[in-house]
């Protein structure tokens, strides 16, 4: 292995849709599996992935998502997003990709750190108790950079 091997990563997850959250989780988990230190920093709507009331209800965006291949007006029909989410979740389960709450637990058990962004927490008027148990801390941007010293930072 070369000396340039990645040793540490920090991933910022800023989106609250299913397709916005999974890449961050897969990359964090994949890093841990390779022995890379990993931290996840959830900000803005990305915090839905670690908020107790919302983490079980994450949906695929069927509107404003041209890659879905369905017209926006169809995507806007009630139930479309739920249906697309159900289909996608089934496919992911077949590949052994866990649902979001289980995935967060898995990453945490793997030694990955989970953080919420202080500015977003204040803005959405949330408290530490609103988050799942895996959340290690609520951090300011400054603290996030501090703990990311020597890491590659990935924004999703």
């Amino acid at each position, binding site marked *: 292995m070369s000396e340039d091997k990645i040793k540490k990563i920090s991933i910022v997850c800023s989106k609250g849709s299913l397709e916005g959250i999974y890449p961050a989780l897969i990359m964090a*988990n*994949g890093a841990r*599996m*390779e*022995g890379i230190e990993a931290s996840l920093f959830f900000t803005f709507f990305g915090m839905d992935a670690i908020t107790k009331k919302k983490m079980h209800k994450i949906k695929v965006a069927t509107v404003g998502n041209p890659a879905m291949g369905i017209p926006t007006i169809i995507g806007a029909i009630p139930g479309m997003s739920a249906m697309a989410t159900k289909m996608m979740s089934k496919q992911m389960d077949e590949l*052994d*990709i866990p649902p979001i709450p289980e995935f967060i637990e*898995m990453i945490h*058990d*793997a030694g990955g750190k989970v953080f919420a962004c202080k500015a977003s927490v204040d803005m959405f008027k949330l408290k530490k108790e609103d988050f799942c148990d895996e959340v290690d801390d609520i951090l300011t941007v400054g603290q996030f950079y501090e703990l990311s010293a020597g890491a590659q930072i990935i924004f999703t």
Partner: protein
Amino acid sequence: MAVKMYSGKEIEVNDEGYFLEPDKWSGEIATEIATEIGIVLTEEHIKVIDFLRNDFKSKGSLPTMRRIKKVGGIQTKDLYRLFPEGPLKKACKIAGLAKPASCI
């Protein structure tokens, strides 16, 4: 591809040392590979290795971390404790299996 000697047997491995001939594996060999990568095998390690080998035998594919937990009953935390810095890869290597190719 390369050939390595384990407990007096010549075994074909890939460039990273993963077995190309899982059938030639034995418990003795597992101990030798583990020593090479700095792991002292215990009952707990052997439980993981047995699950990997049995699951591979019955399914024809390597299990994911999730499957090891759900089907094998081995907690993720324990896997990382037993095989630090790359649990699935290290466990597969010791078990004489291929290099895991899954992202999960």
